[in-house]
């Protein structure tokens, strides 16, 4: 097992981090469009997406079965599957892997839940160290105004309701995500996270991101295949062709 920082691959790994409502997913989608238009092969991977594990996590959350420990371990299991199946192979093939949330999400949330910081860092030792990890910093108040759907869209665990901080979901979210933000802030130096001020305009943030990513692309492989394996966009393109003809 290769540990964090010891992997050497031809591809690049760009990661976005930040609390819900920080705009990180929007920024990553824009970055992906741009990289593709530049002719790079990209591969997208997001948090909680392992086909093998997702069902267990979902059920555990729905039935409120998760403790801080099993919450931490099941997310690490999901992440291990992504690492083994969807992160390492494309990186070996020279792709640019774009990850929406990465190990830092676990470090921030699990520590906010009372899990030992050293233990959870060890747990994720198998992770590939990102080329660049962007942290979209925003206040909890500002993030809340951006969460589409408002109060009803806040989930039980995302609000830290399992910690009994407050019976009111919005107040609990405010308190719990405040702790998460503190944990992120403490990691900036430890892991060299690149901080993006997420209170600025979308265009300004994207321009800054692209300028930073450009520097990391020297020597990266360009490919004619638009994406790694993307049946979805191939199907879409063929539908558009059919419509046009």
């Amino acid at each position, binding site marked *: *097992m290769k*540990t964090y920082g010891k992997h050497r691959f031809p591809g690049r790994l760009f990661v976005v981090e930040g609390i819900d409502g920080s705009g990180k997913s929007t920024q990553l989608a824009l970055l992906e469009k741009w990289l593709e238009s530049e002719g790079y092969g990209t591969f997208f991977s997001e948090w909680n997406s*392992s086909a*093998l*594990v997702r*069902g*267990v996590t979902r*059920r*555990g959350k729905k039935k409120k*079965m*998760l*403790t*801080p*420990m*099993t919450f931490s*371990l*099941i997310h*690490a*299991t999901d992440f*291990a*599957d992504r*690492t*083994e*199946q969807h992160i390492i192979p494309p990186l070996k093939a020279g792709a640019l892997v774009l990850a929406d949330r990465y190990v830092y999400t676990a470090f921030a949330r699990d520590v906010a*839940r*009372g*899990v*030992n910081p*050293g*233990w959870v860092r*060890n*747990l994720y*030792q*198998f992770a590939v160290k990102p080329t660049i990890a962007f942290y979209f910093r925003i206040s909890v108040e500002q993030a809340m105004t951006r969460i589409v759907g408002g109060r009803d869209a806040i989930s039980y665990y995302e609000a830290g309701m399992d910690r009994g901080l407050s019976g009111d979901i919005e107040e609990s979210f405010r308190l719990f995500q405040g702790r998460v933000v503190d944990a992120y802030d403490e990691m900036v130096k430890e892991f060299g996270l690149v901080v993006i001020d997420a209170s600025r305009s979308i265009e300004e943030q994207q321009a800054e991101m692209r300028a930073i990513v450009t520097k990391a692309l020297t020597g990266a492989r360009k490919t004619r295949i638009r994406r790694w394996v993307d049946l979805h966009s191939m199907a879409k393109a063929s539908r558009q062709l059919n419509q046009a003809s």
Partner: protein
Amino acid sequence: MGRFAFYGQGLPAVEPGELKGKLVVVEGTDGVGRSTHVGLLREWLESRGHAVLDTGMTRSALAGKGLKAAKEGHTLGGVTMSLFYATDFADRLENQMIPALRAGFVVLTDRYTFSLMARATVRGADAQWVKRVYEFALKPDIIVYLRATVDELVTRVMQTSGFNYWESGMDLRLGEDLYDSYVAYQTRLLGVFDSMADEYGFHVVDTAASIQDVSDQIKELVEPMLSAA
């Protein structure tokens, strides 16, 4: 200060000093006869008036079914499998073993962290990493390790279920068929178990003797622990 302690950084919000009960671990590789001896031990403990909770791998409410389903496919990687088992173990520790210990039960567990650590280690996981992952486990009162040679295991497997994919470590591609792979895989597992014996204080029981003799030896080991405070 109670008898119980964690191996390292423990579970959040659990005070091991509050736990009463006894934690009895039966360890050993696949096909060594653990479940037979756990069954016999349970009967004996209950006949002596102890309330027993027995548990074993993939029996967690949270992850048991998901883990079994994941093993049906062909994409389960080594690290993912290790952590899936760790999740299953943590759920059982927090929701079965600890509540039972708090209530004064004898918790009898068919395998503990040691099988999981051994499996991860033979799959190339970093030894220190594995050790730290499981440091939230409680130190058992006694660890009975049932030992057999690979030849003995092969004989038993032939008489019972036959070779299967995971017990032969086929995911590791160690041999050209189930038999070759089984021998190579179990040899490595036994090596890791042996290396853990001293470090964790296993009570080693050789299973070459008859079931009755082995069972008697296990009871002799467990008995003094039951009367201890």
